[in-house]
């Protein structure tokens, strides 16, 4: 593809992070179709198979919301409001369309606001269910097929099962590579900092899958050559929660003397851990992953013979991470007005604490205006656990 540079490294990630969407602009100029999406539920494999470029939209935490309030209530999740504000300010002019999976009320109830205000050539609301039982899986396959059909109609192309299978391979490979990079943070001296990792994660969600994979490989090579001398006892932190797509909070954590070595956030491990199974009908593999494998609070998990087992099914992966990355403290991070995460807080907090790891719960806004207060909490948390 045009403008694609030869070497990928942390500097590339940093550039794509700072100039978010710059690659999408180039690809658009080169005649590609760019499809925006907001959350982990968007089936990127389908867009890749359609030869469109999926770009996950992010807001700007340092920018106040100045335009959105004229169209969208302030009781809507601050992330959604900020991204919408950013769109109104023309930061996503490279978009040919958007797919909005049914994730939460803040997205569902504002989908018409997005559609009517942005007036993009392509628009699709993907009505993902919240429940994972048999009928829901069948239903998910159907609505994925409806999405495929509408995308084919817009692009005037056919999305073949072969193309889908290939896209699944590419994205699985991409996820495998990212997990590899995560693993370099397991040791006593993590080879990549939380801030660097956040930049890579953000950069990758703005790139075509092949470029994203190339970037991860480049960064992996680069950091493997690092020789980092042990910093002594540094608290190892995992952050869990809502969509974080900026380094501000991560930087605050690491400046407070901690190392952020793992996350359970929706642009991070949540999307890179579960793969799509290689199924005869690619759509069933996709349905399985997006409906059942993603660990997101908008999916109702009923597994378990009793409540304890149910908690394991919902949050067990967190204990796994705590062991694998030997975590000393967990920061639970949610946004105000977020019902899906908000209702889980008491359960997930006590679940994590039951494994002997202290938890700091932060309810924040998608804005740096809160940083001074967040900073004090985080520093006090570090003073508490060392």
């Amino acid at each position, binding site marked *: 593809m045009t403008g694609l540079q030869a070497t990928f490294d942390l500097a590339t990630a940093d550039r794509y992070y700072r100039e978010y969407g710059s690659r999408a602009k180039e690809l658009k100029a080169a005649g590609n179709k760019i499809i925006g999406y907001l959350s982990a539920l968007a089936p990127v494999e389908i867009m890749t198979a359609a030869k469109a470029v999926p770009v996950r939209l992010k807001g700007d935490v*340092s920018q*106040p919301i*100045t*335009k959105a*309030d*004229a169209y969208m209530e302030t009781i809507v999740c601050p992330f959604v409001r900020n991204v919408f504000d950013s769109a109104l300010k023309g930061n996503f002019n490279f978009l040919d369309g958007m797919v909005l999976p049914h994730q939460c009320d803040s997205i569902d109830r504002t989908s018409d606001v997005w559609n009517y205000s942005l007036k993009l050539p392509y628009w699709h609301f993907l009505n993902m269910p919240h429940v994972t039982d048999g009928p829901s899986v069948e239903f998910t396959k159907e609505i994925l097929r409806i999405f495929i059909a509408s995308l084919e109609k817009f692009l005037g192309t056919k999305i073949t099962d072969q193309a889908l299978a290939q896209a699944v391979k590419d994205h699985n490979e991409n996820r495998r590579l990212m997990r590899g990079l995560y693993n370099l943070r397991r040791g006593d001296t993590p080879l990549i900092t939380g801030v660097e990792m956040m930049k890579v994660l953000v950069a990758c969600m703005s790139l075509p899958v092949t470029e994203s994979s190339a970037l991860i490989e480049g960064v992996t090579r680069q950091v493997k050559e690092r020789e980092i001398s042990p910093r002594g006892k540094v608290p190892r932190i995992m952050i869990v929660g809502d969509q974080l797509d900026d380094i501000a909070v991560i930087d605050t954590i690491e400046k407070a003397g901690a190392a952020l070595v793992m996350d359970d956030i929706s642009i991070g491990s949540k999307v890179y851990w579960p793969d799509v199974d290689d199924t005869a009908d690619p759509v069933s593999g996709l349905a399985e992953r997006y409906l059942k494998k993603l660990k997101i609070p908008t999916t109702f998990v009923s597994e378990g013979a009793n409540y304890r087992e149910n908690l394991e099914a919902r949050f067990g992966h967190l204990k796994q991470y705590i062991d694998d990355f030997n975590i000393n403290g967990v920061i639970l991070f949610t946004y105000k007005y977020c019902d899906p995460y908000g209702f889980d807080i008491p359960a997930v907090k006590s679940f994590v604490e039951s494994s002997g790891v202290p938890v700091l719960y932060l309810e924040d806004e998608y*804005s*740096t*205006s*809160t940083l001074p207060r967040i900073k004090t909490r985080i520093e006090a948390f570090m003073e508490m656990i060392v």
Partner: protein
Amino acid sequence: MAYALGIDVGSGYSKAVICEDKAIRSYAIAPSGGNYQETARNVAEEVLKKINLTLEDICFTLATGYGAAMVPFANSTATDISCHAAGIHLVFPSVRTLIDIGAQFSKVIRLDDAGRTLSFLLNEKCAGGSGKFLQVIARILHMGIDEIGPRSLASSNPVQFTTGCAVFAESEAVSRIAEGACAEDILAGIHKAMASKIVNLVTRIGLVGACAVTGGGAKDVGLVKTIESELNIEVLTPHDPQITAALGAALLALRMVSLNGGDKESEKRI
């Protein structure tokens, strides 16, 4: 000739205007304080004294504003929204969009060619974009509310305020100051934050015809200039923006008189 008295008891200041046939004869302004009844009486006495009148000379008194119900000698009341509309219509007949920046609320009012309210919007149940913002910031910067405007205009790079709430803005301002930001940039930042909230209301209601700004906030040149650049139009500000609602009240009082020959026991609401 009939004198009519309009009294606007706001949460910040109380204002009184006496009109005689659509002309302002006298007006007075006083802080509202904790006792609206007393304030209303005092400001009324003051405005009357200025032209040697007594309450007996007034054919109709109409009260408006936050404490309208607390004006015992009023013959009737109306909301400050229609009073602002009526008031601005006399001062600037061409105005169809009115921005009123009061102590607690900012309002945007669409009016028709007769000065009647077509529609209106108030800022949300949060003082963001209200005059309260300015009071709070003035206090922590230890400066008078009237110093604010000019100082703000001198700013070269406004501080970015990300919060909407007046009290949060305070802590945000304090930390910006702590980081070494100067008063000018803080003020300019606050003005931008307020302006964007107000402009959102204007966008929602739709900008039509000439636009005017009234209320205490209109006396803040910094804020007015910022609103102008956000809307990129020129806005009109009356000579004394604070008395617009009181003036409107007096005019509506006159209308009442002409409607029912000054029968003071007429219908209590317009």
